[in-house]
């Protein structure tokens, strides 16, 4: 019983879609936590010590014990704070399906995938990036179907995996010259439903703010 009351800290970066997953999960569970905002160009000693293998955010520190990798953190949160709704289904087959789609979303709708769009000038490489991004999003849209959330009526693991990237859509659209809504209207509608949830609304930054951040990144990486 005592463990759920231990101190929770998230080593964070406001624009990181991966850190957003962890914060959403904590908020869904009603867990109080402290945020330590990191400067990714000048990482703190705590970050380097807590995640020596990857040196990346987010890191979840619970009772001084660090956990790295956002999806590992979300599962840990689900398994530690059990008095509120589960983020994963209880049936093993349904859990395996949720893990599969989370894994697919994680591999295909990613920072690196987005970088192929914003990190390239208009041209072949960017077109390739857009094509891959939209193809994967369409597969996810088919899986979503007419369900409220990926898990059905309950907001869960797959939704948490993907929804942070909803805040990045605008930036990708502006850089890549395309519309996510035109290509995947059901995904956009799903995103809109998700941001009505307190946990998501409190976590996702404004799309314009993310876009400004992406413009900064473009300057740093020398993209026109």
């Amino acid at each position: 019983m005592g463990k759920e009351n231990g101190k929770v800290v998230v080593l964070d970066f406001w624009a990181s879609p991966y850190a957003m997953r962890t914060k959403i999960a904590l908020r869904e569970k009603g867990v109080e936590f402290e945020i330590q905002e990191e400067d990714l160009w000048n990482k703190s000693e705590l970050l380097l010590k807590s995640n020596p293998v990857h040196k990346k955010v987010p890191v979840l520190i619970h009772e001084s014990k660090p956990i790295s990798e956002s999806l590992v953190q979300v599962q840990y949160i689900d398994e530690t704070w059990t008095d509120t709704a589960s983020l994963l289904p209880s049936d093993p087959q349904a859990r395996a399906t949720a893990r599969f789609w989370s894994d697919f979303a994680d591999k295909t709708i990613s920072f690196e995938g987005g970088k192929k769009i914003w990190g390239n000038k208009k041209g072949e490489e960017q077109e390739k990036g857009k094509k891959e991004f939209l193809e994967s999003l369409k597969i996810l849209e088919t899986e979503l179907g007419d369900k409220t959330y990926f898990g059905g009526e309950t907001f869960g693991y797959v939704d948490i995996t993907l929804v942070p990237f909803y805040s990045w859509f605008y930036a990708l659209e502006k850089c890549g010259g395309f519309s996510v809504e035109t290509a995947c209207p059901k995904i956009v509608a799903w995103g809109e439903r998700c941001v009505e949830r307190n946990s998501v609304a409190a976590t996702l930054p404004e799309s314009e703010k993310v876009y400004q951040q992406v413009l900064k990144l473009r300057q740093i990486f020398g993209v026109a």
Partner: protein
Amino acid sequence: MTNQVILLDFWPSMFGMRTKIALAEKGVEYEYKETDPWVKTPLLIEMNPVHKKIPVLIHNGKPICESLIQIEYIDEVWSDTYPILPSDPYEKSQARFWGEFIDRKFYDPSWKVWGTKGEEQVAARKELIEHFKTLETELGDKPYYGGEVFGFVDIALIGYYSWFKAMEKFGEFSIEKEAPKLIEWTKRCIVRESVIKAMADPDNIIQYACVFRKSLGVE
């Protein structure tokens, strides 16, 4: 109620070896179907339409894809025997972290070290050696990654053992020299019945890699 388990797998796959080991550790009987992932059979496409890859675990007609997901599934369904993952959420998180590390960081250079040439291969060897050392440090003085117990991370990594000889031959390096404790760990693992049955002969893997290298234009 029937408990029908089928595994679609390809003999050289380090991923399929994981699933075979997990099933064997749990004493689960299953039907093995050799499936060449380059020949997209109707069954493979039906059971893994998204990736069309092996291994696919089919339990009572329903498919489960991705080897680490399969191990968790097997652990949850056949929960009355031999736990593969620890029950403590923190210990579990650490096991999952290393499973992710193996799949996201270790895998890429592990095939590039035999499947590429020139600068790309040199970079892959350097990265792979770093990862071997990282994995050795994580093991520390424990008999297994699971501590006293052969567990999730052990199963995730030992599947690569059949490929070590090929990595060393084409990558021109010695894993024992770079990570001797890791080799000690493999010796503990490969006496387990489940691992013996799942492993492919390293010399057959070398032959397979040779053919693959030719098709990749590396040889």
